[in-house]
């Protein structure tokens, strides 16, 4: 592949320039020489007299400000002692520690409050020198990091199936969850296998292939889609036809052209034990739609139903269940099936509605019927399998005669394998899938059955399930090299789309053109604007901001928060995802994540926040007038994730801000940490208030070192209750006290002040975002050796107003993303997981 050689040269040049720019003087380090240079430990440029004086100055600075606690004798902090007496001449043996020092000083979190703080100029002087020295020390020794084969995680697998076969599957039902590390579930060294997983892979391959081809042999079964009890259905539901109320829309993949029983089941109150119908005194029209067209309707409720129910609730249940079931002919493939009610708004106005959540009441005779579940049962009277998006994608030819079958099967399966394996395929790649095709035919299956079996084989292949990168022949272990265009295409698509490359990207890579001038940047722009980049938004924010935990962890006490429902929970997530997606796609500054005077709301969420003038289910950009609501710190998602069921948690919120935005997470509590109550034991006078208790608690050094940092950012957000609504008074009726002093000594008194304090040193926030995104992009933990790259990306982004696309492009152009190191044969996966400083 001659293209690879040319492009490799190009990128080497690029990398060299990039690394050279991190240094102050003209140097010519190239990554290819890493081995040779580290063998001869000559640091770039011998220390000159002025450099020595410089080092002595910084030594003195450290001794004055840090070494009093962080020395070889006092073990401080106790859980991971830091000794800063070590030499400044050679930083690399302690690179880990120095990076930690940079983070702490970057947030001005050291020296601790109560100790004299250096001047701002002193801080900047020292951190600039230290980061520059680290960058220079790594120069010529940097490696692009160590990669191991990357198994597709659950969402990558589902997206790959979607892009290969035009099939949306809910893979969580079929595959176990992936092991995560470093905060993400796409970390190569953590994506291990187990018998459970491998058995599921084969089972999934069988089912997906059957869904894609269609299954005229499918046996009738029922799929039930449950609607959360906490989901309010009093209004119009997004994606259902206008003029309807409540219900749900499901995209169901129908296995064959056949009849199906589509049905809705009513919410019956008292945890389903109540068999009656809500709102049964007046008639309601239940309708079922397929792809927007009404295919069934039935009347539920009214005097007759009411009479039956008054006589015998169970009899009414049977009667109404039957009436809410329609038998409908549906063609194979995915269809949007809607189950809803025709709205009668005029008759709604006399209904007493004590809260926005409509699932409070035990049962509401005068209320409205709601759906608890919808079902698709079938197929019955199968007619065959007509055209579906999956079949159109898969069957790139149709054999006109038996003689053409073999050639057509070959074409279909080779075409699929190329996309699935993300590279040109050879005859050898085709042997196994074609073997399965032939076997199925010999067992009496028709052409489709043969193709199905071949597809199952492709989906079971390690070439599909793993992202495999190869070292060129002749490269010595430990030597970095540029990855091929095809490998780069996969790195790009899995970073930006959590999926396989599309035809366009694959073709460019196969032609060796991906690194031609302008092409890579244009492809990245194209990919970011593509809707598949929603995967980056959802997976990255889902984990960086922990939005994935909303479903499992946010469960406010329903009596304390009567307006909170599942609609709000879903809206929280949607708001933050739309917000991040907007900033990414509109090429806005990353700082807007915290400062934007706009957000994305629909009527329900706007009402929740108290923002006027927003009507309808659709989310749209809304300008915020309240400065406290700006940016992520005003998002209900984050505010509710950092609360407990009955109240806010300043400690959780503080921890979230320190970890997620400033990369200075507090250490976990050490063994046998005393509780507040225990700290109070032995005190001369018993503490009366929580504040007094906390003060005693903080007299215990290990507790103080964290809580002094943790509590103030949390207190600053106390104006937001545990579901993200503004409040001026706390649960006890007293005004909310938001005052506190941050680690850097700045006084804050509310969300806006906290935000401004964080933004006063944007590099700390942007570095954190960059480091998290680099981890996600590379699928491995970040090591000290990577930090010069992070700093370089941040510096470059800073010149560009910290635009997110500048960060994304910086990551993509960086050596770790463009290169890999051939590993020593003896290295284990575990040693790669914890790549040590050489």
């Amino acid at each position, binding site marked *: 592949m001659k293209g690879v050689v040319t492009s490799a040269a190009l990128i080497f040049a690029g990398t060299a320039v990039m690394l050279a720019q991190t240094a102050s003087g003209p140097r010519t380090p190239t990554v290819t020489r890493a081995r040779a240079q580290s063998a001869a430990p000559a640091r770039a440029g011998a220390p000159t007299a002025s450099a020595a004086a410089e080092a002595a100055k910084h030594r003195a600075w450290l001794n004055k400000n840090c070494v009093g606690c962080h020395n070889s004798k006092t073990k401080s902090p106790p*859980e991971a002692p830091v000794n800063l007496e070590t030499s400044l001449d050679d930083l690399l043996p302690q690179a*880990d520690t120095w990076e930690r020092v940079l983070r702490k000083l970057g947030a001005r979190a050291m020296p601790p409050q109560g100790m004299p703080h250096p001047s701002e100029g002193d801080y900047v002087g020292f951190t600039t020198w230290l980061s520059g020295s680290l960058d220079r020390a790594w120069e010529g020794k940097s490696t692009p990091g160590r990669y191991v084969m990357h198994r597709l995680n659950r969402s990558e697998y589902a997206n790959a199936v979607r892009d290969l076969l035009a099939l949306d*599957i809910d893979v*969580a*039902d*079929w595959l*176990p*969850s992936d*092991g*995560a*590390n*470093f*905060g993400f579930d796409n*970390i190569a*060294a953590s994506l*291990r296998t*187990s*018998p*459970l997983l*491998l058995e599921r892979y084969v089972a999934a*391959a*069988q089912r997906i292939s059957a869904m894609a081809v269609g299954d005229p042999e499918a*046996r009738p*079964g*029922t*799929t*039930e*889609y*449950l609607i959360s009890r906490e989901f309010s259905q009093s209004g119009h539901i997004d994606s259902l036809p206008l003029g309807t109320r409540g219900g749900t829309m*499901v995209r169901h*993949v129908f*296995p064959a052209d056949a009849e199906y029983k589509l049905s809705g089941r009513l919410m019956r109150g008292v945890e*389903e*034990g109540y068999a009656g119908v809500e709102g049964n005194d007046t008639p309601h029209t239940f309708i079922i739609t397929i792809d927007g067209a009404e295919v069934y309707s039935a009347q539920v409720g009214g005097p007759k139903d009411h009479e039956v129910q008054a006589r015998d609730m169970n009899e009414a249940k049977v009667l109404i269940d039957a009436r809410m079931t329609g038998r409908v002919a549906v063609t194979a493939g995915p269809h949007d099936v809607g189950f809803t009610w025709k709205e009668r708004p005029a008759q709604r106005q006399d209904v007493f509605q004590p809260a926005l959540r409509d699932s409070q009441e035990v049962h509401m005779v005068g209320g409205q019927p709601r759906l608890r579940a919808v079902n698709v049962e079938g197929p019955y009277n199968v007619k065959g399998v007509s055209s579906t998006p999956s079949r159109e994608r898969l069957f790139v030819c149709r054999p006109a005669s038996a003689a053409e079958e073999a050639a057509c099967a070959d074409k279909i399966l080779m075409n699929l394998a190329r996309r699935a394996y993300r590279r040109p395929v050879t005859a050898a790649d085709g042997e*196994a899938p074609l073997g399965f095709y032939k076997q199925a035919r010999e*067992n009496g299956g028709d052409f489709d059955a043969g193709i199905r079996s071949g597809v199952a*084989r492709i989906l*079971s292949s*390690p070439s599909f399930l793993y992202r*495999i990168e190869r*070292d060129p022949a002749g490269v010595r272990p430990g030597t970095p090299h540029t990855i091929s265009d095809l490998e780069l295409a996969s790195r790009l698509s899995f970073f930006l789309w959590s999926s396989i490359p599309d035809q366009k990207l694959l073709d460019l890579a196969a032609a060796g053109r991906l690194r031609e001038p302008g092409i890579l940047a244009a492809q990245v722009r194209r990919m970011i604007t593509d809707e598949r980049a929603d995967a980056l938004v959802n997976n990255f924010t889902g984990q960086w901001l922990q939005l*994935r935990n909303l479903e*499992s*962890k946010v469960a406010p006490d329903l009596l304390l928060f009567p307006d909170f429902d599942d609609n709000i929970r879903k809206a929280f997530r949607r708001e933050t995802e739309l917000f991040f997606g907007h900033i990414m796609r509109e090429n806005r500054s990353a700082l807007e994540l915290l400062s934007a005077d706009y957000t994305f709301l629909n009527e329900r969420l706007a009402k929740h926040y108290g923002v006027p003038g927003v009507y309808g289910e659709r989310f749209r950009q809304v300008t915020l007038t309240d400065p406290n609501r700006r940016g992520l710190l005003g998002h209900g998602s984050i505010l509710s994730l950092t609360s*407990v*069921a009955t109240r806010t948690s300043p400690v959780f919120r503080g921890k979230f801000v320190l970890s997620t935005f400033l990369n200075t997470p507090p250490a976990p509590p050490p*063994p*046998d*940490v005393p*509780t507040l*109550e225990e700290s109070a034991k032995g005190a001369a006078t018993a503490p009366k208030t929580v504040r007094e208790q906390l003060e005693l608690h903080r007299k215990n050094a290990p507790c103080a070192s964290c809580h002094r940092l943790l509590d103030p950012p949390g207190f600053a957000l106390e104006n937001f209750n545990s579901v993200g609504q503004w409040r001026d008074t706390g649960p006890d009726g007293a005004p909310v006290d938001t005052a506190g002093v941050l680690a850097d000594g700045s006084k804050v008194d509310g969300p806006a002040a906290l935000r401004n304090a964080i933004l006063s040193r944007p590099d700390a926030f942007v570095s954190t975002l960059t480091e998290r995104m680099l981890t996600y992009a590379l699928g491995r*933990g970040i090591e000290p050796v990577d930090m010069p790259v992070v700093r370089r990306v941040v510096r470059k982004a800073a010149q560009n107003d910290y635009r997110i696309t500048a960060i994304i492009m910086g990551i993509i152009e960086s050596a770790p993303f463009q290169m890999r190191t051939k*590993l020593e044969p*003896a290295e*284990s*996966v*575990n040693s790669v*997981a*914890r*790549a040590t400083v050489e």
Partner: protein
Amino acid sequence: MIITKKHLSRRTFIRGTFGAAVALPLLESMVPALTAQSRTAASAPFRFGAIYMPNGVFPDTWHPEAAGSDFQFKPVMQPLEPFRDQLVTISKMKAPWGSSVHLGASSAFLNGVGPVATREGTGDAFGKIQSKKTVDQYVADTVAGDTPLRSIEVGTEDMGTAVGACDGFPCTFFDALAWRDDVSPLPVGINPRVTFERMFGETGSTEQRASRLKEKQSLLDSVTHETAKLRKTLGGPDRAILDEYLSNIRQVEQQLDRMESRLGAITGNAEAPVGLPEAFDDHMTITYNLMHLALQGDISRVFTFAVGHEASDRGYAHIGIPETHHSISHHGNDTEKLAKYAKIGTYQIVKFSQFLAKLKETRDGDGTLLDHSLLYWGSGMSNGNLHDRSNPPAVLVGGAHGRLKGNRHVVAKQDEPTANLLLALAHLAGTEIESLGPSSGRLDL
């Protein structure tokens, strides 16, 4: 039938097993066929199960006051009274720290070790996945025989929806109680439907099931060949990954082979009951029922069940506790919170006792399933408020083939390592290992 669902929730029901009922009538009707090969008393196998309780149990509500026989149950353990004759509870042991407050408690539960890597000096960037083989796997070595599943690992939740909560370790340490060897964690499966399919295979007609099983076997066989070829072309660590992959494929192949020999024994339409149940109580019941079925049908003789992952943030609203389990375990000695903490423990013990009752009702050879089982219910900490490793709850129930004398409260030597109990469990199962993790000897049961 292909079961699909999207968008809304994770629950897919099959006709006939609808609504609030969570019993598994279809499954139970299958069992006589499964156990048709009548067992003689002598051949009734030994069964072992370990059940993990996250966030600890407050010791004052758990450990009996008096040692020896005829002790008085404390409130949380009280629902186990009907099984007193086959019950031994142990106090005064010390569970290992295991590197981290919560993660260490569960990950060291069955091997006394937890993560081999420590945080010390490594910053946040370490990802070593290494522990020690766990006691259930030692037991499986001895007792698994030709059962389709050498062991089953189940739970009700995993870290898939607990982002950023893995204490800086790979989340695998939270998800896995069992380790097949030092580098092979066996994470829990939380979807009862998946567990069901692992136990019984795919759903469908007998012919469809047989043909799917055959195709699965061919797929695995073919993939093995491809992987072996691929392996030769790759470097060291990648080979190690494929080695693990291949060894897991072999496990599945063996599992399917053993299942094939029993396929004929399952008659009728075995249709899987549920996906992920919406109600936690249902999830608990179904999972215990599946474990009962696995033991009864001799599909597996060893299981581990994490009723929640350590530091579980699950709310127990169905018993009047909307707060999360973890926050309740940090009770701060508040009376109301302590009462709730005890209530969660009691709820779990009630679920356990219902499972035990089923084992006791089930004939097995010359006795009951419970007579031939050894169940270990416990936690990696006692007082969750302090993450206290002293005096953790540990209760054994079951006749263990007559090897365990019941009705006893055993007081261990002060701070005797829980690893000593694990060693004793292995010996009860007939697994003669000399030590396990940090064990200093065998706990005197």
